[in-house]
């Protein structure tokens, strides 16, 4: 099923709950989705950051999509990271996941979330997407994250999609959105490149940027794993979707305080978001294990400050 437009608002970059054997923690996934779904406009699964996608086997990815889709049941769109370490592996992942959804006759909206420069150069990217989009009925969300590409430590490799290439990519109808991390100047140029496609959304991939200068499409949020209600309120306020509430006397004060709280929260989880957030979700009895993939470095600290912060501020 091809969606007309990607959703506007809060996209939660969901952690992947794993049990101590390294399998998907089904109970944890269900509890987490139950907590997050009422506030999210879309869920991102197996992302390279919070979803630990680069450390998940294809089997685990398949399992994750199967279990999450069964829980979500089309209530909100699913974004799923398909990028592998090569074109072949990306195509293989896509084909497998596509077959899975087909076999379950999944009726909900799904967007393939792809970081093209993770496995492909700018050269020939248009042709690559022409091929890739032919092999699926689902639309795509591109992810431009120079930090992710830099992790690959490939010298001389460009870490941003070139603006002229993006302009060409915008001709491909199945590309419905871009999640962006990088400079304001670059995002402005990207916006210009996408001017002919007003239906393409450009989300902020950087929470700080969104909290300062919000994109009117929405944000990809890490912190929403632990503070989904507050992130939802702040996102809606930033997108001008709470106009009626503005008349309430302390509305601006409340939103201001929420924004400040989210910034404070981020300073706590920022050094190692996956491990810190998983640990707090365990402390809060939302997931059963704080197991991570080998791609995530353990981050030991005497007390989990995040859990204390969440309790002190009654964050839900």
């Amino acid at each position, binding site marked *: 099923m091809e969606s007309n437009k990607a959703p506007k608002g809060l996209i939660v970059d969901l952690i992947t709950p794993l049990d101590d054997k390294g399998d998907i923690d089904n109970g944890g996934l269900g509890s987490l989705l139950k907590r997050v779904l009422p506030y999210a406009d879309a869920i991102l699964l197996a992302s390279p950051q919070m979803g630990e996608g680069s450390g998940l086997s294809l089997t685990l990815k398949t399992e994750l999509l199967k279990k999450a889709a069964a829980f979500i049941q089309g209530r909100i769109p699913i974004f799923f990271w398909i990028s592998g370490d090569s074109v072949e592996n990306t195509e293989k992942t896509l084909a497998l996941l596509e077959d899975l959804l087909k076999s379950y006759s999944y009726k909900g909206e799904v967007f393939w979330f792809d970081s093209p420069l993770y496995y492909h150069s700018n050269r020939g990217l248009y042709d690559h997407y022409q091929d890739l989009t032919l092999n699926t009925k689902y639309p795509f969300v591109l992810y431009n994250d120079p930090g992710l590409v830099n992790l690959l430590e490939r010298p001389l490799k460009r870490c941003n999609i070139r603006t002229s290439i993006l302009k060409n990519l915008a001709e491909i109808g199945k590309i419905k959105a871009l999640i962006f991390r990088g400079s*304001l*100047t670059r*995002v*402005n140029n990207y*916006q*210009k490149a996408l*001017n*002919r496609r*007003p239906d393409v959304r*450009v989300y902020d991939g950087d929470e700080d940027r969104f*909290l*300062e*200068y*919000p*994109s*009117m*499409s929405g944000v990809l949020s890490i912190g929403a794993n632990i503070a989904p209600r507050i992130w939802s309120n*702040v996102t809606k*306020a*930033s*997108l*001008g*979707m*709470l*106009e*009626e509430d*503005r008349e309430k006397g302390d509305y*601006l004060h409340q*939103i*201001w305080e*929420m*924004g400040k709280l989210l910034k404070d929260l981020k300073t706590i989880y920022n050094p190692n978001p996956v491990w810190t957030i998983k640990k707090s979700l365990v402390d809060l009895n939302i997931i059963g294990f704080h197991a991570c993939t080998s791609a995530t470095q353990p981050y030991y600290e005497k007390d989990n400050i995040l859990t204390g912060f969440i309790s002190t501020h009654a964050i839900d």
Partner: protein
Amino acid sequence: MGRVSRLIQQAREVLQIEAQGILDLIERIGPEFEQAVEMILDSKGRVIFTGIGKSGLVGRKIMATLNSTGTPSLFLHPVEAVHGDLGMVTADDIVIAISNSGYTRELVNILPILKNLGVKLIAFCGDPESPLAKESHLFINVGVEREACPLGLAPTTSTTAALAMGDALAVVLINRKQFNRKDFKRFHPGGSLGDRLSIKIKEVMFTGDRIPLVAIDQTVMETIFEVDKKKLGASLVVDNSLILLGIVTDGDIRRALLHWKDIAGLEVAKIMSKSPKMIDEEKKVSEAVTLMEHNAISVLPVVDKLKRVKGIVHLHELLGGKEFRVNGIQ
């Protein structure tokens, strides 16, 4: 030093975001903008802006721009609208409703009433799927990709974009209406022109020997001499008590020549206009200008309550670039 630099950097970012918001509108302007212009030009009514909060303020500014450039315009507050102000709206009017989200409750509430009144509705809005966009006859997309203020505390780029689009509309209307300097002066009675137009006629009219005057029993030739001498293109015709009986203009003389051929010896009463427009010396210059423009005349006798001639004014003198030659120091 570091703090100042951060402040400047932030200010630059805000300007960059707002500038981009306007630049994005350029490619987005399409046929619906042209249709909006034509709709306004074809309308016999006024352009009424409506909006809440900062969108309302933007509406008021665009209204002021349209008014000062020849497009009659009003502002309707959506809340006051349902408490009686809808009475200002007629079926001939066009309503431009401004809301970035297009969901503003107070605005959406009055849309059915406005449509019921038969007005044409134009949405200045950022969401084509919003109730405002869907209920309107025309949707002008003033959406922006990024606000420059955190947490939606205050609209920034979106109001700037709406304002810029309003200016685009006003300027296009100026050009289409061939609005000129004279029109602009008429709608800007502030400054020196305002001073001119607000003073009394008796303070600026030509008086005494500057008034072209002939008696009712004088000839046309004598009248021509008087018109030529006083250089106002006309002469007033009076009785012995200086009561205004008529006026003879260059045009009257030309028409008389075509009719009688030899007019030199004719009495002026034969060719004069017997019901000339006139104005009281106590009236303001602005009223004289309006009277002359509405009747397509360039000179106007000034009289007292008994219709005695007290002076005369010429349109060009009233609106011309020179300052008035005030009585007594002409």
